[in-house]
């Protein structure tokens, strides 16, 4: 019999969300080809697809699928929801931008959806080949999206940089994967951990292999010293896409990173992973906040702040274990809301694409665009980790985890870094609220969908920060199945 039919119904069912996304994307592309009149509706259609996907995702069967290549658990479900949230933000904020830039074509939503398909698969993948292919899938889509503003040379430049770095890194990843496979004889996580437990292979090579993999995904996260691409790409790429780029790939990569670190750290092998992760985290927190302090361009500033936040995100991994998931998950949720929201606002408030997004341009706009300004303020405070915002809850959980596992030093560094951080987050607020206008917004109009996204993000941030109880309880219940 043909082995292709050896696949059970369940396998395809478990793949349903990804299939929905891909399908919708393909449909949009077809519509693009044949009924361009519908272009204004494409993003909406894509959004519907995302919603559908997330609904389906909510009642996914748990377990391993496709011969143990992908799994679906409560965790992957939760992270996948983050991806979908980010995708939604990316779509909502795009509408106005694309219209303004006359880029309202089907390719944007299509690529975005495909990208999130890849992200979902990356999250769920528990086998190196799958992970690698998923990584490439989403990367290729990202390259395309980064260059989406094809009349804007900085957009293409950003894409080129991102692409070259990405290609280089993916070859490193491949080599790392090769080493891991070679030393353990298996490409599945389970197989690898079994081999590691058995102690096969040369520890040096194993460590190197994992190191290459970790660094590869660290690159996607933008950890120092693999971070340098982030500011350039963020600055050059279209803002709504950055709202997605600065969030979704990080969530997925964080999952893989966590998988790998937890996997290898639990095994008897060379290398001090606590030390390694701590070094990465500390470097990211300090460098990110310090460099952001010096930025006058809001997108670069947010890029560096994102780097810093990835440092915070890494803190729970300094003592890898199942307990690391929870804080990371919450941190990513809040990060998605606040950072996504911030970039949505940037894409709305900076009408002119190009190199410069000077923070000073916002001076005194708070009373011109009260809603947007308020949302921006909330996002900034949340990024600064000031209660009652989601940012604080997340930081609280992270620091608590650090203290629980005796990484006091990490917590201290984190705290001082965030003190630096407060300065430039507040700078945005005082530009908005406490300065007189220096540049009039001209005929700048804030599109509805973008504002919707911003308000949703801001409200989510505050609700999650002020009344985290219900959400976290729900999350706890969901994760209880772990």
């Amino acid at each position, binding site marked *: 019999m043909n082995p292709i039919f050896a*696949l059970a119904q369940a396998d395809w069912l478990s793949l349903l969300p990804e299939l929905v996304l891909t399908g919708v994307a393909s449909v949009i592309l077809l519509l693009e*080809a044949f009924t361009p009149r519908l272009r204004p509706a494409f993003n909406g259609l894509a959004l519907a697809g995302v919603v559908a996907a997330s609904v389906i995702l909510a009642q996914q069967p748990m377990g391993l699928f*496709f011969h143990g290549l992908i799994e679906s658990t409560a965790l992957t479900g939760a992270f996948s929801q983050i991806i979908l949230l980010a995708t939604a933000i990316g779509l909502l904020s795009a509408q106005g931008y694309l219209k303004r830039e006359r880029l309202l074509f089907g390719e944007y939503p299509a690529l975005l959806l495909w990208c999130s398909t890849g992200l979902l698969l990356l999250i769920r993948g528990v086998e190196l080949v799958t992970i690698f292919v998923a990584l490439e899938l989403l990367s290729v889509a990202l390259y*395309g999206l980064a260059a989406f503003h094809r009349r804007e040379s900085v957009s293409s430049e950003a894409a080129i940089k991102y692409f070259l770095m990405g290609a280089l890194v993916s070859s490193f990843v491949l080599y790392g994967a090769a080493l891991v496979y070679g030393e353990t004889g298996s490409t599945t996580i389970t197989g690898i951990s079994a081999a590691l437990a058995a102690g096969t292979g040369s520890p040096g090579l194993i460590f*190197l292999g994992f190191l290459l993999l970790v660094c590869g995904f660290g690159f996607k996260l933008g950890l120092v010293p693999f971070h340098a691409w982030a500011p350039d790409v963020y600055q050059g790429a279209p803002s709504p896409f950055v709202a997605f780029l600065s969030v979704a790939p990080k969530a997925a990569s964080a999952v893989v990173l966590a998988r790998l670190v937890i996997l290898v750290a639990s095994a008897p092998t060379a290398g001090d992973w606590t030390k390694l992760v701590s070094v990465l985290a500390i470097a990211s927190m300090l460098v990110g906040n310090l460099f952001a302090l010096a930025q006058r361009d809001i997108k670069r500033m947010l890029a560096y702040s994102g780097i810093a936040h990835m440092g915070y995100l890494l803190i729970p991994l300094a003592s890898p274990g199942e307990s690391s998931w929870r804080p990371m998950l919450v941190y990513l949720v809040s990060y998605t809301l606040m950072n996504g929201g911030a970039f949505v606002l940037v894409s709305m408030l900076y009408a002119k694409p190009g190199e410069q997004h000077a923070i000073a341009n916002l001076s005194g706009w708070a009373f011109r665009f009260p809603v947007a300004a308020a949302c921006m303020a909330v996002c900034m405070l949340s990024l600064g980790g000031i209660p009652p915002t989601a940012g604080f809850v997340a930081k609280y959980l992270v620091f608590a985890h650090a203290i629980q596992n005796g990484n006091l030093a990490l917590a201290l560094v984190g705290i001082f870094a965030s003190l630096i951080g407060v300065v430039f987050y507040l700078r945005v607020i005082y530009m908005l609220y406490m300065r007189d206008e220096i540049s009039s917004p001209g005929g700048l109009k804030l599109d509805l969908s973008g504002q919707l996204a911003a308000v949703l993000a801001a409200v989510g941030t505050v609700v999650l920060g002020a009344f985290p109880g219900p959400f976290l309880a729900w999350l706890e219940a969901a994760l209880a199945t772990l």
Partner: protein
Amino acid sequence: MLLTVFFLLAIAAVGSAIVVVLHRNPVVSTMSLVVTLVATAGLFIMLGSPFLAALQILLYTGAILVLFLFVIMLLNVQRERTTATRLSGMLVGAGICAVVFAGVLVRLFWAAYADTAVKPLEADSVSLVVIARELFSTYILPFEMIGLLLLVAVVAASWVAQRAEPGESAGTPDSMAEPANSPDPAAPARQEGRR
């Protein structure tokens, strides 16, 4: 006999690789990359996977590198003034890193596999059949993903490489209805993607 073949291939691979990296003229680099790839294909055969060797030659040399040449011609990239650039610190840094990394790898490999002997190849140790079966059973998912990946790649590539449409630069998006403007290459790719 085998030994000499191996060494020939290895020397060819490394030598041409060095040319790839050092030669100023991208065309030459590309051609010498072809050599490397072919040599590697030979090594694949020696390692008992003729299928991959074939694939390597077809896909890489046949498709990808041709694409490269095509683009190079298209952009008629001049030969770089020098590979050693203004910031020669780069050069040194890269050199040191590369050498160190190579050293590390070689040392580790040597330590691990200096005296690993593999049992000689049987007839169907890793035969095409096995690969095919694997591909359509265990690895069906990545296989599908590759399809999607290629589709995405084509769409992305066509979007970025295409000239800006008239509607983009002037007029409202709605003003441009004719499908001719929309990126076409997606269609065949879609076939491939869905299979």
